[in-house]
Structure formats: C-alpha cells, structure tokens
C-alpha cells in the first residue's frame, strides 16, 4: 500500500485543504479513492490522475505514478510553466476600473455616519415581532469590506450583529433581499467572536451579475461548511459527502465543544437532509433547535427531521416555533417548512395557527429563489415580498410602490 498526500499550490494555495475535495482516478476515469486535501489517501501502486474539484465546477488535475510502499505528494493547482501561467493571467478579461464594485461601494465610514456607498446600496433591517415584520435597523454598522481581485467585494458581518435582512439595491431593478443569520451577542459562543480569524458569522459577497445587476450571495465564514454547502448546491454529491463526514464538520466540533458554530452545524444538517441520511442526524437536530433559540433554521431542520421520522405532531410543534423565530435563513429550511405546513393544513392538522404561519411563510416562498443557499427574494418592501416581481410577471403596469426609508445603511 502507498500513500498520496496533497499540497495545494498556485491558484489553490490560499484554500483551506480541509475544504477541498480530492479524488484519485485511473486513466479510464474510474474513481480509485476520494477524500479531502488535508488527509492522505492510501492506494495501490499505479498511474493515476489526482484531481481537486472546486464547488464552481473547476477541476485541477495532476498525473501521478505511485510506486509500491512510497509516499507521493500530489501538487494541485501549481503551474509548472510560469510563462504559461502569466499568459493565462493576461488573457483573463479585465474589469474596467470604473466598474469595480469595490469602487462603487467604497464606504465612507465614521462612528456617527451610516455606511454610504453612492447610488448602489445596501439597506439593513431587523425583524420585529412575528415571522417577518422588518424595520430599518438603527445600528451603526462598520462592517469589514474587502475588495476581491475579480471586482466583487466581501462585506463581513460579525455573527452577533443584529441584522436580519439586507436589501441590495440597484437602480432600475427590484431590490434583492437577503436574509442574514443574526444573533444576540450573549448567545453566541466562542468562535463567533469578532477576531479576524474567527469562523463564526457570514460574509455578503456582491458581484456583478450577467445582466447588469448585482448578485448578492451569503457565505459562511466557516470555510469547510461553506465549501460543503457550495458542493451541495452544485450537485457535487461525493464532494459534499467528503466534507460533511470530515472531522471539521462533526457534531462534536460544531455543537458540543466550547467553540460551537451552530450555523455550520445547520449547514451540515441541511446537507444530510438533502442526502436523506437520517441516521447520521442523531439528536443533532433537536439540540440545534433547543440550544440556539435565535436560529430559525434549528426549528425548520428539526421539524423536517421529525416529519421524515413519521413524528408529525412533534414536527408541527417545532415548525410552529418559526412564528417567533422568523424566516429560516437557509432557503432549504423555508422550503421544508412550507411543504410540511402545506401538508398539515390540508389535512386539517393543528387548527388555525399553522394556516396563519403558512400564509406568512408562503408569501416569501412564492418569490424566493431556491437555487440560492440563503433565503433570497426580490421586492421593494421586505414586508411585502415580491410586489414588484408580481407586477412584472403578470404584465400589469409597474406601479411605484411606497419604498421604506431606513435610517441606516442608506447608500
């Protein structure tokens, strides 16, 4: 038996090897072994292709010949020919400097001044009572804004910040409303602290969409969980499984240790629910629901898990917690909740309250884009989701709906 170790180099050098799925194929493309780049794989001697596949679908390969009893290092992402690398770099389309989002969004922050980014803006909301009664946030935000090489920007929110929704506004288009997982500071433990290396919280990544809009995507700062979600959304099943089975995503690491990360735990639970791996969920979902009452997703995940176990009464009880906790942050959670509540209300289970909750959740699910990992919907008013989208889709004249005027994050 021989061992293959992995080294990420070149374009992959900055990636966390725990977040990169790798596989070894023979030249017929049959998979011989698979795992993650941080852990060696044992393998019979022979000639192979070592491959790292990123969630974007991009693959990086290197040929290997593995000798008996030896340890081989597969260097993935490295460019052996620097001139070729340079040529490729030059051939990439350049982003005109005035089109850089980082320039458009350059913040002028001061302790007393809300973040202002010109005509293209972000508005922040907090949730009041009920499922979704969003009001403009009064907090002064000083998020960390990081321009990226491709012209997009990362806006980093600490996990304890009480912002439930960010509306991304582009002139001429309905705003895109993205849910954020907010939490009271005192209820966020350990790793959710604000230090730069912390894996708690989320980043909002803004990039140009193909049709002159801005695309907003939320990413977890827990690198392994974020990569796992991206693999899952890209329908890269083996890769998502490799990560969800890894030590970094174990329940012990995410739920039971001092530096718990319930957001990453929720991500893992969603991936397991997608895969139908009910046995591996154990009491993970119940703990997520009970220990982190600020996390709406805990109720949605636990409700779906119980429903799949055939425990419908208990499932409904968990789902009803969304009435207090609000919309699930992950779109899977919103979908699960609406599907189950639809079943239960059609069968007359639970009386009027589930119907009311379903009505509220449905108004968001109707306009949510379930291709996104985090709940995202369009509309000029986050309390009246999809109004503008409705006007467009029915061909009716697009009216000017009253626009809420938040006092912070005015762009």
């Amino acid at each position: 038996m021989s061992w293959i170790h992995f080294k990420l180099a070149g374009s992959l050098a900055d990636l966390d090897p725990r977040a990169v799925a790798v596989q070894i194929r023979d030249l017929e493309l049959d998979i011989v072994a698979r795992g993650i780049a941080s852990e060696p794989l044992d393998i019979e001697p022979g000639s192979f292709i070592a491959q790292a596949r990123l969630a974007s679908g991009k693959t990086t390969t290197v040929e290997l010949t593995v000798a008996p009893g030896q340890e081989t290092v597969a260097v993935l992402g490295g460019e052996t020919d620097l001139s070729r690398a340079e040529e490729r770099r030059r051939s990439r389309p350049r982003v005109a400097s005035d089109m850089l989002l980082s320039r458009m969004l350059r913040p002028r922050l001061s302790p007393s001044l809300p973040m202002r980014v010109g005509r293209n803006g972000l508005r922040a909301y907090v949730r009041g009572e009920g499922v979704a009664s969003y009001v403009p946030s009064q907090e002064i935000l000083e998020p960390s804004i990081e321009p990226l090489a491709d012209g997009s920007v990362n806006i980093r929110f600490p996990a304890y910040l009480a912002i439930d929704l960010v509306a991304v506004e582009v002139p001429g288009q309905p705003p895109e409303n993205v849910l954020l997982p907010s939490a009271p500071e005192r209820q966020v433990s350990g790793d959710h602290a604000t230090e730069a290396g912390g894996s708690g919280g989320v980043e909002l990544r803004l990039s140009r969409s193909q049709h002159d809009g801005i695309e907003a995507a939320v990413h977890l700062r827990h690198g392994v969980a974020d990569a796992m979600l991206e693999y899952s959304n890209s329908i890269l099943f083996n890769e998502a499984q490799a990560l969800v089975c890894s030590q970094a995503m174990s329940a012990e690491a995410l739920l039971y240790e001092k530096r718990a990360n319930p957001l990453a735990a929720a991500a893992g639970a969603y991936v397991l629910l997608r895969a139908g791996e009910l046995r591996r969920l154990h009491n993970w979902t119940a703990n997520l629901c009970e220990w982190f009452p600020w996390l709406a997703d805990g109720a949605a995940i636990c409700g779906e898990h119980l429903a799949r176990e055939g425990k419908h009464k208990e499932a409904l009880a968990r789902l009803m917690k969304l009435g207090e906790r609000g919309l699930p942050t992950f779109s899977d959670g919103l979908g699960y909740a609406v599907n189950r509540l639809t079943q239960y209300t059609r069968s007359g289970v639970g009386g009027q309250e589930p119907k009311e909750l379903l009505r509220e959740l449905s108004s968001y699910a109707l306009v949510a884009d379930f291709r996104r990992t985090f709940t995202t919907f369009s509309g000029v008013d986050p309390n009246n989701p999809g109004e503008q989208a409705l006007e467009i889709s029915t061909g009716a004249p697009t009216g000017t709906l009253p626009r809420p005027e938040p006092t912070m994050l005015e762009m």
Partner: protein
Amino acid sequence: MAAPPDGMTEPGLLYDSRQSRARPGVHALIVGVSEYPHLPGPEADGEEATLQLRRLTSAARSACSVAEWVLANRARLGQPLASVRLLLAPSDTERRESENLCERAAGAGLDQFLDSVAGWRRDLSLCPESIALFYFAGHGMQGAVADQVLILEDFGSNPEAGSVLRKSVPTSSLIAGLAPTEERPDIARRQWFFFDCCRDTQRTIRKAESADPTTAFGWATSLQDHREVSVFNAAISGARARAYPNDLTVFGKALLDCMNGAAGERREDRSGWHVSTGSLGRALSMIGHKLEQVDPRIKFDVQPRGNLRSSMVLLDGPPHVAVTLTIHPSGAVNSTGLAIYDARGTSVNVAVPLDPNPYACHWPAGAYRVDSEDKTSNACKRGEYEEVLPPHWSWVGP
C-alpha cells in the same frame, strides 16, 4: 391482480409489463396538455376569468417525445420498465405528428388524471426498489400558498363554479401522496418528478378567497420516510417555462439531450457509463445556465435528492462531449502545434493549425491530454490529463 397485457382496461396504459408486480420496475406517468378546450387559442388574447392562459403548442409533443424515449430505453433504465401511462391533450398539429401515441393515450382532464395517478400509485406501492417517473408538460403556476399546481385539460370549463383552480393539482400533494404509510409501506423509494411548466405567480390567485386546487391523494400519516425524491423544474418559483416554436419545450429538449448522454458520467462500480440523478442535475443546471445567458427568462430549478449516484439510465459507452479548442491569442494559431492523446495514449486527430479558431468537435468522454508546441522556438509543453465530460468541455491554450 395484474392488468391485462394489452392495457385496454385502463385508459392511457401505454405499456404494461407488470406480470410479476412485486418485482422492482420503473412506473412512468407522462402527461402533456397543449389543447385546453376552454382557453383561447395560442395567438388570441387571454381572458381574466381563465387567468390569461391560452392554449399551448409544444407540451403534448414534449410528453410524446419523453414517452417514446422511455419506451426506447426500457431495458436500460435504473430498473426494467414496468408500466407507462400516457395522458395527452394534443393540438391538431401534434396529433398529426404522433397519431399512434395520441390514439393510445387517455385524455388529460382532472378525472382521468386522478384515476391514472391512483393506478400509478397502486403499482408503485408493491416494491420499495421500484422507481416512480412522473413528467408533466402543460400550464402550471404557483398556487395561493407557495405550492406549484399543474393545470389539467378541462381547466376553465366553468370559471364561476367552485375554485378557479379546481381543475389543477398541487405538486406537493402528488409527492406527499407517494410517501410510505401504513397502507403502503413498500412504496417505491426512488421518485423522479419532472415539472415542465410555468411557476409564475398571479395576483388574482394570491388574493383569491377560493383558489384551492384538487389534491391528488387524501392525507395519510407517513411512516419513516427514506425516499429519494428528485424534482426537476423547468422554471424557478415566479418564472415561466419556455418552448421552441413548433418544437419541444426548452426543458423537455434539454432533458432528452441529457438522458441521451449529455448527462453521462462514469459509474461508481466501474461497469460503464450512466446518467444518474446527480449527473442529470448537474448537466441540466449547466445547460440551463448556458441558455439563461442567451435568454435570462430561462431558469431551470433542479433539486436532485438522496443518493445522487443511483442510475437513471445506462449508456452503451462513453457519451459524446462537445469540445471547443481555442488558441489564444489568435495570432499564435499558425505557430502553435497541438498533439492530443486519449487515456490509452492514442493520438486524437485534430487539424493543425486550428481552423477555425476556436475549433469545435466531439470526443467520447474520457481523459485527454493536450500537448502544445511553439513552432517558433520549438518549445514543447506537455499538458496534464484532464477529465472530459459532457455536456461540454473547453480548452484554451497554449
């Protein structure tokens, strides 16, 4: 009791191989509704009472094509084909094109649909290893709750009688009705749903006091649910499905392309090539994304779930991949030599210098290596073997 082999007793039972019904098999229910008799024609103005909907021209054709594909591939599906039910409401043109299928199909009104879906579920209830395949092409929309509804042939027959959506069926009731219950503990665990219809949201439905659709099945408490339910939608919530004029629906064509190889991948057990629920999801997403670049209204929504490695259809061999080779910068075309090798080291024939540049061709899926040579300096660069998988693959060099 098994239905007679000729399928005459159940309208629309196009194919019946249920002699041993406890054995696993694929049970397909395929529905295509173009001709809605109570709606205006395709070119006419829509009417408010019938939600501005008009007759369609491609839905029944797409359903026929899917049915023909299922029949032609009956021995290569994830399980042997056991039954096909076909419900059609074709336009006159579609009827002329597929006379034989149209004659053997049942109508696609609400009652026929409910009867067929009940028979389909009975067949699926006998063996957990069976596979449910459901395809619907026709009108659809989002219901009053965030629940997609499939609109059947007799929609609009009397718009003032009862709920405006009473001649439609919510997809959630269809999916929930196939869950394992005490009555049906052995129902098929693998279930594939293809909803080739719009999912736009209509203000009148959202505001309506009574817009309840008709559920496909009554409620029954489900047992532990280990189903692998994969849903493939032609549109995201709020968007509309599209069709090529006088041809197939956009989604139907993409689906058939995928099943014919564009979604092919190597099987895990090294026994050849297949289309799995995962590879279909990836390929449909890729094709959908490419189409969306051309027409932003096209937005496929694919949700494969469960073990995504399970086979939908086996392929005879490696599928063909649409390959694009590009020399960049283009001024280097004449001074760049290329040598391409497959996994066995066999040279792949490509006209060098590339003409045209980019150069499009098709290769069987597999591992390939592209070596390049700068003829001005005689410097050679050996490429790495890369996996070349459908639907398309691009190389830019040197």
